[in-house]
């Protein structure tokens, strides 16, 4: 696991020094994290990297997992989908199963800590056993802007008893009697997906993947999902083909276990058929270095989403210093300031226009890429994410002042 000083080249020496100063004020404090899984998913990925940093900074982090049977996870999956805006049928028995499972967890989980970060709906009900004097934060990673009201009303009863809530974007906020803070998610600059690669490493990987580099590469790395609009990407690319020399690369998972994904992949392959400058590539989910190399080899990176949560793949692309053209949805406008640190589009025509323009104006494209990388350095690295959590802990510990001198 990377040491905190190893983040200095990416985040800046001063960012590391700031973290050390903040952490010194929380020295010896226990920060408990509770979520539902130790592996897989963004929360576990972040925690597995952030907690060792906390330990190195003199804080005592703990990580507990909520436990339940398949029926419990079926209910919380319904909660998750309902909060995301996909209509779900919840019965009184479902809500009772949630209560019963949380009650059992309260008996088995050690909740003793100065500060607790409770992630997402699954463990939210643990608030019933909050130790007195502890500060509890509900950390929501879900876009709640289209949440289903019965599920939200049920959770509201728990969440409104926390000391604070944390959301990823302001548009995700809901009416709550507690303070809400914005802490966007982050990327790890030292992870395989984002770490620096030499030109030789990049070209070796591209050769191994049999992706020719004789033309400028425009890529979109996303699962084959209609909401990522891969067909729209192909249509936009076909519009500019008469005017530019370039190659389009669509990279996603194999979608073997996802019937809808398989259908979209088949449609994408059909749309690309017979066009030698459109490559469709399926990679296994562990292909982090390969994705990194593809992004670094690209001239332009697309994320033409029609709907997104936060859309952190945009920050991953920006971190490679590439000009990014992305859909203006979800958390993407927080990551891209249009025409300054990337391009935001809403249509196939707009995407085509900007692809052509950036290919023809490499100096402007380069500036967008540089600005984008700096924006990510300041706002979307793991070190900033940790800093925000520590600042929030300090805010709650130091009497909730608007102005705090450390």
């Amino acid at each position: 696991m990377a040491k905190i000083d190893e983040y200095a080249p990416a985040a800046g020496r001063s960012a590391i020094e700031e973290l050390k100063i903040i952490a010194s004020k929380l020295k010896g404090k226990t920060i408990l994290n509770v979520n539902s899984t130790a592996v897989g998913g963004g929360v576990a990925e972040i925690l597995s990297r952030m907690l060792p940093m906390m330990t190195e900074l003199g804080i005592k982090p703990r990580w507990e997992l909520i436990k339940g049977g398949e029926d419990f996870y079926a209910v919380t999956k319904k909660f998750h989908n309902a909060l995301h805006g996909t209509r779900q049928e919840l019965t009184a028995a479902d809500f009772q199963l949630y209560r019963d499972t949380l009650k059992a967890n309260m008996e088995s989980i050690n909740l003793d800590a100065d500060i607790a970060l409770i992630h997402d709906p699954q463990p939210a009900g643990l608030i019933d056993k909050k130790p007195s004097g502890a500060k509890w934060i509900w950390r929501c990673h879900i876009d709640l802007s289209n949440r289903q009201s019965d599920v939200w009303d049920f959770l509201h009863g728990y969440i409104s008893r926390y000391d604070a809530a944390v959301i990823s974007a302001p548009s995700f906020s809901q009416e709550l009697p507690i303070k809400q803070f914005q802490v966007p998610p982050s990327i790890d600059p030292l992870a395989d997906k984002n770490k620096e690669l030499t030109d030789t490493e990049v070209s070796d990987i591209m050769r191994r993947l049999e992706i020719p580099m004789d033309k400028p590469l425009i890529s979109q790395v996303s699962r084959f999902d209609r909401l990522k609009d891969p067909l729209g990407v192909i249509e936009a690319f076909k519009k500019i083909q008469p005017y530019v020399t370039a190659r389009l690369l669509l990279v996603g998972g194999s979608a073997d276990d996802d019937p809808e994904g398989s259908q979209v992949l088949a449609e994408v392959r059909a749309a690309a058929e017979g066009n030698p400058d459109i490559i469709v590539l399926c990679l296994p989910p562990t292909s982090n270095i390969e994705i990194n190399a593809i992004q670094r080899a690209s001239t332009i990176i697309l994320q033409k989403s029609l709907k997104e949560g936060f859309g952190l793949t945009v920050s991953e692309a920006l971190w490679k210093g590439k000009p990014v053209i992305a859909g203006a949805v979800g958390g993407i406008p927080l990551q891209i300031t249009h025409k300054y640190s990337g391009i935001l589009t809403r249509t196939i025509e707009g995407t085509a226009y900007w692809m052509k323009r950036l290919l023809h104006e490499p100096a402007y494209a380069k500036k967008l890429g540089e600005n984008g990388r700096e924006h990510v350095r300041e706002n979307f690295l793991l070190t900033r994410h940790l800093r925000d959590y520590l600042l929030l802990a300090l805010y709650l510990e130091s009497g909730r002042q608007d102005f705090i001198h450390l």
Partner: protein
Amino acid sequence: MTEKSNDPFRFCTRLSLTEVTGRKASNITELLEGIKAADDAIIYHHTHRFIKQSHHLVPEGANDFAYWVANTVQADRLGEELTSIDIVQYHSLADIRDAFVKMLERHIVENPGPMRTVAPCREFHFMRAIRFSLPTECAAIDYASFIECLRNVSVSSLYLHVFEARLRPPYGVDDFSHWFKTNFNDEIVGKEISRLDPYSYTLESLRQRIIRIIEHRLPEVSRG
């Protein structure tokens, strides 16, 4: 001139945590009402934060209000006017708020017709900045060590001492100028720094400008 100061300049830095208030504006009138009701922490977030967060962008934006009006409401003229509000020239956040209120009120009086309401999800979200000031390990006792510190501190520190400092006593004066004047009776550094504004440079290039200003003073100071 004194060569070393007995009162070292201790560099601090400013960090902030963003609170989401839940208040939104969909049009110019709602923006005006929101700004009227806003406390200092909200005004600070939408004016000072913007410069800091976008400091690498050239050209930079001016403030969140202007950016939203120009780019989302697409009221070009008003957006331009709001951009022109020079926040670093004001001595309090209340004064900055009043300047925005005055300009928006005038716009509404001059444009009484129906106003554009932005699409859902494109509203302006009012947020507050919970501010933290932290000491850094950098401290300067003379011109040379000051330059060395300037090379190493974060842009947040630079911003805090050069621009945000003007909002607290002695009002309108940045911390660097104040220190050089009170410790070395040097008013030239202050005069040069006071001419810098955050809209014309990125904070990184401002850092280089300030270093050059102090470096130019070094030979004269050494002569005593």
